[in-house]
């Protein structure tokens, strides 16, 4: 696996569902390119990056501390993030990260 990527990009698909998309410009699917950096991208860093760069509404409804708010499920390539180390999971290029809210409306 060649970790050294000469191009300046780290492509990733980020998807939102269950109402979480309302906080992200009402768009369910985002193809994002993360800036290349020395340390690996983890979900922890991704969540912080999303908060700064993609979130359009009320951050407190998406993040809590450095993680997502309880009630929002995270799946990487359809796999439960609880199985892969949660915040510490190191993202790979072209990973598909899905955030689904199970919180209700009214």
């Amino acid at each position, binding site marked *: 696996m060649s970790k050294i990527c000469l191009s300046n990009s780290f492509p990733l698909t980020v998807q939102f*569902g*269950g*109402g979480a*998309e*309302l906080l992200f410009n*009402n768009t369910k699917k985002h193809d994002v390119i993360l800036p290349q950096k020395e340390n690996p991208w983890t979900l922890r860093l991704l969540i912080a990056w999303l908060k700064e760069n993609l979130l359009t*509404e*009320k951050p407190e*409804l998406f993040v809590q501390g450095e993680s997502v*708010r*309880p*009630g929002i*499920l995270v*799946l990487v390539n*359809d*796999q*439960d993030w*609880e*199985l*892969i*180390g949660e915040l*510490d*999971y*190191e993202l790979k290029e072209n990973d598909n990260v*899905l955030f*689904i809210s*199970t*919180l*209700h*409306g*009214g």
Partner: protein
Amino acid sequence: MCSILEEDFMYEKSTISQELCKNIDVLCKKCLDNIAMIKLQKKHHYCKDCFVNIITHKFRATLGKTKLIKPDDKVLIAFTGNQSSITLLHLLKLGVNEQIHKRFKFHPVILFIDESIFWPKEKRMVDLPKIMKALKNSGFKYYITKLSSIYDNYTFQDINDVNDISCLKENESDNKLLSLFHNIQSDTSKTDFLLRLRYQIQFKIARILNYNKIFTAENTTDLSIRVLSNISLGRGLQVSFDVAVCDQKIPDIYLIRPLREITSKEIVFYNVFNKIESLAVPSIFPMMVYNSLQHETELFVYQLQEEFPSTVYSVFHIGEKLKTYAVKENMCHWCHNPILLDTSGVTCLKESMVHIMSKYNWDKPDDKDDEEITNKNFALPSLLQRIPGYENAKQRDIAEWINGEIKKDTHCGNCISNRMTQKLKQSLCYGCQHILDDMKSLDYLPIGILHETVAEFQANELRKEIEDFLL
């Protein structure tokens, strides 16, 4: 006082074993073959196939245990468009397409209650057609109605053209509905009232269609949140009805909850694994910002769940162990739950200070409560006028009678309204009284849900008058 109450015992924190090293895939604990894709309750790992099988099995087992569904039964499926109800449709579709020996032999018919009037307009235009498409694709027969049909005798339609949502376009009833909710002063009561209205419509339409079974898509997580929020709404008596696998608060209709053993996390993964597109259903509160007891409870449950993964189950099982007494004569007119007549305990506390004060001869009684009622209900005569049959009342001219009544009473011009509101309040349970208290005005209350109350009231008033006359 110290935080420890008398009968405390230690609650042990779940210890989360961190057996997972990065980059090492965990195998499914069932087939021991495939890579696990979901982790439940912080300890059970399953692969896609095993997980989907487990869910399907749970669903069928829950239905089977009720022993209520007979071959050729017609069942009304309450569809809201949320994630659980999409799962429910999918599971039903699988069931009726199974091999012959496992095939469901009952006939599901879908009822979709459109609440999109509360959504932002753009959202409506995008999401409604999606829901229509999902209904169409389910392959089942379906009916569509609107939440505002409470103003229109619960009319519903069975349209089959997914592009034709014209029957859902805004009408006057929708505006009434919006005003009704606008008049409710707290998000807590709005949420509660909405829930009660949904049930009300489901029951009414089931009756009209002559169905006696309804499936709803409420899941374990929803129901455990319901248990806790019912408690904080003063609806403790109703907990067992509101979470039962078969809710029979209305004697002639079985409300069945076939997803009650499945948690919201399982629902989400089921949908993802089956590639079912989720239709986000926005709430009556735009942007998920609201301040209600129910929402606070939801957040609390999810928060606690992170640390104590059995929370949802413990709460849910409490609901199963409770009973309620169905009292036919004393049913709340809004939510159909029993009304408690006992006036000991808290109820005595609620009978405002006025009462207690005057009882112990302290100071003058105040009539603040009466004042409040008067302010709220000056419009009641006009409310009465909206009752069907009011115009041409058979036995006597009620309008004249009411006017006469109002004139007769020199102390208080609104006495009949007061009595009417009192009557209305008496016909509601403790929980629904809260909703009534939060309503600024009763002007937009739909006749459908007032009918029984008013009919009873009229009968009482007439009887009283005849008695007075005979004396």
